[in-house]
């Protein structure tokens, strides 16, 4: 009997003296895990800052920023459709048929133009398939590109600047005021009203009868 006892495992005695420590650990551990997961799983961590490598070193900072080409020159369906088109190669060749015609950076563009195969641009912003997002509903009613895509005119390579989570959509749908501007400035970057944006937005929303909806069927159908 005593033989068996000596062979079996026994917790060391000193463990008794650290029982308060263990209790503290048992309390802090779960809190730690919850805080960590909340922090690590938030869309701010997982979604923001995604910046895929693109097949052509195309720069918005140059074309939209320095050259000041309007977003709609390339994304020309943005005021009419749900989808803001990525421009076909033809659009690049409007200018690059006679600018930088030999540039190695544009090799893939010329190749695509000659063969008719699309340039394999990598998608940056991508909502799940069960969400219906509509660009024209926002852009023509006074939400600028900047509110959802950030300062694209300063990006060498496009990255995701906003969370694009459901909470983020709803945050603005509940209180869109600070993000509103006259639709003719939708593509302008760094636009701000002369007065307090909240005051301007409230007046603008009332004048234009803006009332973004929050019921599930607005975005899920």
């Amino acid at each position, binding site marked *: 009997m005593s033989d068996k006892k000596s062979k079996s495992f026994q917790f060391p005695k*000193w463990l008794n*003296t*650290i029982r308060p*420590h263990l209790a503290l650990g048992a309390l802090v551990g779960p809190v*730690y895990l919850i805080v*960590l997961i909340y*922090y*690590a799983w938030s869309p*701010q*961590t*997982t*979604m*923001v*800052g*995604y*910046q*895929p*490598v693109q097949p052509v070193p195309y720069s918005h900072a140059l074309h939209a920023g320095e*050259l*000041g*080409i*309007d977003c*709609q*020159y390339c994304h*020309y369906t943005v005021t009419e459709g*749900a*989808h803001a*088109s*990525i421009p*076909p190669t*033809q*659009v690049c*060749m*409007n*200018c690059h*048929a*006679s*600018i*930088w*015609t*030999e540039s190695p950076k544009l090799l893939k563009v010329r190749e695509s133009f000659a063969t*008719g*195969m*699309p340039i*394999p641009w990598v998608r940056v912003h991508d909502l*799940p*398939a*069960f969400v219906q997002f509509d660009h024209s509903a926002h852009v023509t009613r006074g939400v600028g590109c900047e509110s959802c895509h950030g300062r694209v005119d300063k990006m060498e390579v496009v*990255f995701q600047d906003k969370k694009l989570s459901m909470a983020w959509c709803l945050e603005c749908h509940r209180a869109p005021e600070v993000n509103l501007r006259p639709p*003719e400035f939708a593509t302008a970057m760094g636009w701000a009203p002369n007065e307090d944006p909240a005051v301007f937005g409230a007046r603008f929303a009332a004048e234009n009868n803006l009332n973004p909806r929050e019921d599930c069927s607005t975005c899920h159908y």
Partner: protein
Amino acid sequence: MIPRWFYPLGLIAVCLALVPFAVVAKLRATKSPDPRPQIIWDMDQGYAYQSQQPNALFRDGRAMRPEVNGTVARGELRADDHMYRGKVNGEFATTFPPGIEVNRAMLARGKERYEVFCLPCHGYTGAGDGIVSQRADALQQGTWIPPISYHSDELRNRPAGHIFNTISNGIRTMPAYGLQVKVEDRWAIVAYIRALQRSQNATIDDVPANLRDKLR
């Protein structure tokens, strides 16, 4: 007795517990070329193709199918020569098509569209000094032909239909904009170019008599 290694080990454990936070903080502060790790896929990706998605089934890799050659989609029959080609009896039309009304709202639309699509090359007044044109000239590569000014007699006398055709199909070294600009918007741009030409070639007779004093 608590063993001597207990407190140092505990301290190390607490320090290690901070490492995940540091990693996450770095992830939040930097950009990453990798897509987010998705452990649970929910129903994020459907089987239906979305706009401009690739589809390996087709040789050109496009899920969105272009129109088959020689076919006309419903509602896309463009039989009206005046409206869609700017021609009447085979000649360039000098008037706007009957379905297009020239008014203030249309001119405003024309200005807005002009400043999106034409401004980079032709400039605000149509003199041909757009910023892309200036940059291309500065590059001195010898491949750029600057746009011509709208303000010559030749261009002022171009029929409206000719300018419409220039936008739709391009001319000489100017690329075609038919893909990017809708038909009604092309006519609106034509009207705006007419306004630009008037504005840059105005005489005192164009100013209403009661306002002339203000100009002196």
